[in-house]
């Protein structure tokens, strides 16, 4: 424990870098996934195509994806964030599309009957009702990205993976454990807090219907 206590500032910096890396990737992922999810929600053929393409990306191991991005993007935060975004698309697009698709048909008809345009229906009815499923997707994505981001330290993106890789290089168990425990705690914290948001949204949504 002594190393971790003496070097809490190093750990805090790595933790901060890790959070910024994941938050940036998550924000970009959402900007890309929302239009894709909305577009494919009621178009089965496009949905299958999107799931196949993003499914292949999701299957490629992190280190391999970094290796394939290096010739185009070099090292650092840019390829790391790109890889994290590519990973997240499967789950985000899927949950956004499923959330929209599972809005009860009678509510869609009611909105159409009240003269809602497609855009207004999307923003006032479909997206609010899809929100719990979308937040579930964001939760899974955040947890995945927190884990994958540790490997990103190998291509100089910083974060908690840096502490783990230093521990490996120096054969220093405490450093490895400090990096590993902090990463796991961060993943658990993200999982639990988003679960809480999800539960409150579900309660609010079922009240409204």
């Amino acid at each position, binding site marked *: 424990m002594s190393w971790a206590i003496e070097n809490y500032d190093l750990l805090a910096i790595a933790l901060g870098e890790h959070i910024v890396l994941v938050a940036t990737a998550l924000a970009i992922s959402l900007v890309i996934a929302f239009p894709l999810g909305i577009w494919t929600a009621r178009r089965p053929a496009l949905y299958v195509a999107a799931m196949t393409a993003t499914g*292949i990306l999701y299957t490629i*191991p992190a280190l391999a994806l970094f290796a394939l991005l290096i010739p185009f993007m070099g090292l650092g935060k840019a390829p790391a964030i790109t890889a994290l975004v590519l990973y997240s698309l499967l789950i985000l697009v899927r949950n956004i599309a499923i959330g929209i698709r599972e809005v009860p048909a009678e509510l869609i008809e009611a909105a159409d009957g009240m003269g809602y345009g497609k855009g207004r229906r999307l923003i006032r009815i479909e997206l609010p009702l899809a929100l719990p499923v979308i937040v579930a997707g964001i939760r899974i994505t955040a947890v995945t990205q927190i*884990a994958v981001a540790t490997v990103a330290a190998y291509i100089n993106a910083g974060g908690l993976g840096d502490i783990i890789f230093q521990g490996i290089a120096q054969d220093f168990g405490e450093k490895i454990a400090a990096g590993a425990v902090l990463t*796991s705690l961060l993943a658990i914290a993200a999982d639990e807090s988003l679960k809480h948001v999800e539960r409150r949204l579900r309660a609010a949504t079922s009240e409204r219907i």
Partner: protein
Amino acid sequence: MLGDILAWLADHPQAFETAAGRHLALSGAALTAAMALALPLALVLVRWHRTAGSVIAAVNVLRTIPSLALLAAALPLLGTGFLPAVIALTLYGLPAILINTHTALREVDADVVEAGLGQGMTDRQVMRRIRIPLALPVIFAGIRTAAVQIVSAATLAAFIGGGGLGELITAGMGTLNIAELVLGGVAVAALAVATELTFAGLEWSVRRSTGAAA
């Protein structure tokens, strides 16, 4: 680029074969071990309701540990090489199989189980003739998830001297050899996708045969 990669492959066929063979051995050993541990454990946990809660909670914590962290943790505890990597990969693949198997066995339709007990089946017979066959597709889905996770994470074994295709990536990075680096990336990606497709095919045929039976 493609020319460079093929040229590297032609010059170093042995290195590629060794790395690919090692990757398959690591993944195969870890998947077998994970199944050998998780499947019997899940069977036992279905009976022991009280212990099940705490074991599942512990396994859920195990699930949040990143693969890099698990493999790195093997280094100070177990040293470098093949066996420490297999042990770490086994722990990484275990949760998906255990949780899927346990959930699937427990959530088999209570009416069907009742019917079996009503016909005078023993607990053991209910498990063997009703619960396991009906749970099989979900159990297989867990094995598929674990297989892909293990093949993926085995790439990181290169960092703790466990070998595998990740070594082409780390060696390529170390010597700035883009051909070797990209070949490693392509090989790992192809292997992961092939694993996913193979196990998806197996799962599909299991689903079809149990669906036909039921």
